[in-house]
């Protein structure tokens, strides 16, 4: 169910996300001082190539990572396998990717606001 390729994908995406997520938490700890507002967030992120790449990589990695992670859990708990499991894995991955991309564009793309 989890072969070497999926395993490596899960570990590598985890390694990529580790600094990104810690960075994200650090920013949050800093940012929440005095409360959050949409403007504040957007002011920081919109139009920034850095944040676009930062969150872009995260979204990609997390879609892969979480899809594989949920695949494992679904297999071990519900015993689903083969085609169905494959389908679910891809489904979760793509769903997360699409939703993540929407959020990414919303938060970092300038033109739209």
């Amino acid at each position, binding site marked *: *169910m989890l*072969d070497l390729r*999926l395993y*490596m994908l899960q570990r590598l995406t985890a390694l990529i996300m580790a600094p990104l997520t810690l960075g994200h938490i650090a920013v949050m700890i800093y940012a929440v001082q005095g409360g959050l507002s949409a403007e504040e967030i957007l002011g920081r992120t919109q139009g920034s190539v850095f944040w676009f790449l930062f969150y872009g990589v995260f979204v990609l990695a997390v879609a892969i990572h979480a899809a594989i992670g949920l695949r494992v859990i679904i297999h071990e708990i519900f*015993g689903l396998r083969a085609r169905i499991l494959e389908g679910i894995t891809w489904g979760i991955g793509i769903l997360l990717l699409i939703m993540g991309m929407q959020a990414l564009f919303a938060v970092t793309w300038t033109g739209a606001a």
Partner: protein
Amino acid sequence: MDGHAELLQVSVWRGTAQSGYFQEFEVPGLENQTVLDVVSWIQHYADATLSYRFACRVGMCGSCAMMVNGQPRWTCRTHVNKVLKDRKVEIAPLRNLPVIKDLAADMDPFFDKWVAAGGAHVPSSTRDDPIAPIDPIDATRVEASAGIECINCSICYAACDTVAGNADYLGPAALQRAWTLLNDEKHGNRAGILAAVSGSGGCHNCHSMGSCTVYCPNDLDPMSAIAGLKRETTKSFFRRSR
């Protein structure tokens, strides 16, 4: 029998793969009594149809493992006093394997996986060659020797929740055997082992829960052996993609 012994309340799983129930027995408690002795007493004196398995009686053959109060144990080497709670004990067939009848589990899947993990030596020399001199304290050899005393009792296999959830998972004992062979310089096809443990039931399914290592009656450490396999397969992954 030494008579005047206190009675033990023993609850024993009866049944087949399809259905079953716990049956209560009263067994005289005696000195130096193992769980296997309790089970044998029931078969000898209380219910002649009780099925179970044992051979060596001393912890060498690994055929007497059962669930004792929900934990996998070698029954021939488990003193009842160690597991009694208020003079009660519950005995069931080994987990994660099909039940044949009562306390006897079908161990075939365990051994099929042992072979599937590449658990048999592939020769690199023949009976006409001299025996290779091998430094016993060489680091790789020490790694190979660490798991060599496995008695294939399947206790680790029963303890592992990944096995419970993932029918294809090769399990700790088979993977530990693969790790031993990977470190055996006499083995003739080490790449084959890496391939065998990298498939969809391979070492990468292990979540390092460590129950295998906690329950192994011989103090072996399959968890670390599996970690070793993950390390080596990861290396091979990068080597291949280069």
